[in-house]
């Protein structure tokens, strides 16, 4: 920690790159798109320095396909994109869910729909991260409000991808991606890194790539290894071969959802500020959480019992944690930069949804502490 070389003053996109390298990333495929491009640019430089591979593909879909292919040869993989590119990746993302292929997708959010507001901030892709690809499935999506946390959740994203054999989405936003601040890169070993779990089944013994162990994990075998098996986006049996047997279809779909939804409390990451005695709770995430914490700190100084619950895991939604933390609050204000995506989840989670309010901003500007304060004063009956 004292090594000067470990202290950097960089953009959030670079913090994400540093976290990915720390986690063992060795293959990246991407396509230029604002505001995520710096992730590709830095990895184009960094990856070959450690013997890894970077490829700029012909489009967003190809990038997603290439990382899935590279994951199957035993590598830790990632792609990065923003709004329109995230839309394009959805089919292949669903493939990774179905075929249970570890990979990380960073989506540095910008204003949408469509081309929208490319150089400005938004948090409008929260629900797309959950339901962007077709069909029932579960997903893990994470976010952070400062560079140290971006680094940390990026490492965690790789860890969760390996642990649960699933795509994990990093929902950064334009402000976090482009803002410069300090990052201290931890020493190796300071943050645990989960490596690929490989099968111990010996050559010549029947290997079942899709038969979970007792602990629910599925050990993998690299392409090129001794076990030749099939990977498909069709519903499949424990060998990976296509099946439409109703029992197999149902069991696989339930497995894909349960492996994540049943572990929500293990997966969930969050931070809390002054919640113990809070009458008013702000729930926020990503760059808007910075304004929420700032505003709460100022109100605290004026005697208002206000706290902040900063969500770092958005999917699976940590409903139990939100309910528990908000149990004693007079009002809950969800601070986000969209038309109300997480607020819907919060209303579903808490005991009294009538006390949940939305403080939002959707004009491409970062929501400010005074935006939130305005709503708080109205809730308090103090007027604006």
């Amino acid at each position, binding site marked *: 920690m004292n090594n000067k070389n470990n202290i950097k003053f960089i953009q959030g996109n670079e913090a994400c790159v540093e976290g990915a390298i720390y986690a063992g990333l*060795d*293959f990246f*495929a991407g396509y230029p798109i604002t505001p995520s491009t710096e992730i590709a640019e830095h990895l184009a*430089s960094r990856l*070959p*320095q450690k*013997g890894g*591979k970077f*490829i700029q*593909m*012909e*489009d967003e*879909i*190809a*990038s*997603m*396909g*290439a*990382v*899935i*292919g*590279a*994951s*199957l*040869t*035993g*590598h830790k*993989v990632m792609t990065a994109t923003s709004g329109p590119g995230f839309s394009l990746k959805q*089919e*292949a993302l669903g*493939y990774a869910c179905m075929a249970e292929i570890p990979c990380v997708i960073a989506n540095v959010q910008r204003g949408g729909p469509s081309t929208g507001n490319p150089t400005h901030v938004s948090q409008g892709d929260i629900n797309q991260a959950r339901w962007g690809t077709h069909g029932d499935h579960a997903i893990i999506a994470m976010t952070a409000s400062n560079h140290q946390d971006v680094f940390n959740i990026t490492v965690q994203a790789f860890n969760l991808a390996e642990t649960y054999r699933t795509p994990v989405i990093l929902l950064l936003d334009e402000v976090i991606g482009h803002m410069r601040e300090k990052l201290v890169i931890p020493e190796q070993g300071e943050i645990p890194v989960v490596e690929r779990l490989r099968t111990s089944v010996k050559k010549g013994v029947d290997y079942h790539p899709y038969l979970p162990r007792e602990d629910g994990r599925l050990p993998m075998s*690299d*392409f*090129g*290894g*001794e076990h*030749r*098996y*099939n*990977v*498909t*986006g*069709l519903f499949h049996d424990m060998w990976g*071969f*296509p099946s439409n047997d109703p029992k197999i279809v149902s069991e696989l779909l339930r497995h894909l959802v349960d492996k994540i939804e049943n572990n929500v409390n293990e997966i969930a990451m969050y931070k809390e500020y002054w919640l113990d005695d809070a009458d008013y709770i702000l729930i926020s995430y990503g760059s808007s959480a910075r304004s929420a914490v700032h505003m709460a700190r100022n109100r605290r100084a004026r005697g208002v019992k206000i706290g902040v619950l900063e969500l770092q895991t958005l999917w699976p939604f940590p409903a139990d944690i939100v309910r528990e933390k908000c149990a004693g609050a007079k009002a809950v204000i969800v601070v986000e930069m969209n038309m109300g995506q997480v607020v819907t989840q919060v209303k579903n989670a808490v005991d009294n949804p009538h006390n949940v309010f939305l403080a939002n901003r959707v004009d491409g500007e970062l929501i400010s502490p005074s935006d939130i304060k305005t709503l708080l004063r109205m809730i308090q009956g103090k007027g604006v």
Partner: protein
Amino acid sequence: MTKERFDFKDYIRPRFFPHMWCPGCGHGIVLSSLLRAVHELGLDKNDIVITSGIGCSSRISGYVDFHSLHTIHGRALAFATGVKLSKPELKAIVPMGDGDALAIGGNHFIHAARRNIDITAIVMNNRIYGMTGGQFSPLSGSGKKATTAPYKTIDREFDIADLARSAGATFVARSTVFHAIECKDLLKKAITHKGFSVVEILTQCPTYYGRKNKEGDAIQMMEGYKNNTVKIGSKKLEDNPNLIQRGIFVEKTDVPEYCEAYDKIIQTAMKGKA
């Protein structure tokens, strides 16, 4: 060539046979030719990754006892690019249908060719979307009948060999399932070739294309391949320039292969030179 007698059963997953293709479908002949090529080259099954997309042709990946990756429609070459670049010692073979490779997957096709990445693309050209029931493809050509062209197609077709050559493929060849030995031999050359190789194989869809366009059954369609194709540069072309040419159109060895070129990038980067 290995001395050992060729036996299909050494290379397939027999529990999935008989296969799902229609009676007389040419795709089984492509499968057979591919397996013979692999056998004669003496390749280790553990070294082969077969990546396919969606469609009748794509089911080939489930039948072969290699590492098999059955992906999404049109994107097989993108997935295979990830496989190959991340582990260049593997042999990457990508069988695709004509719609899979050149409609939805057209972008990946030309860019894989441009990069000259060492992948063998096999385009199983039956000029129709078979899996979905006989819609016209970008290889149907004009004046053809399909379920989505009840009044005949007005779309022109690609020439796959010309397209592959223009896009930069360093090995381009064409054969038909009638010419099964030639087909196998071209596949052997393509798989051995260092760089992006394309083998177009004309293969009949008697169920949809043949029936809709009154080209007869599988046998008559194969007679068509016999009578309507010639070796590249044949004198018969003087009388009938519409004959389809078979053989090797492009075979270049002086273009850097992508994975090898990237290895040089790694060497440069590791020395700290930008």
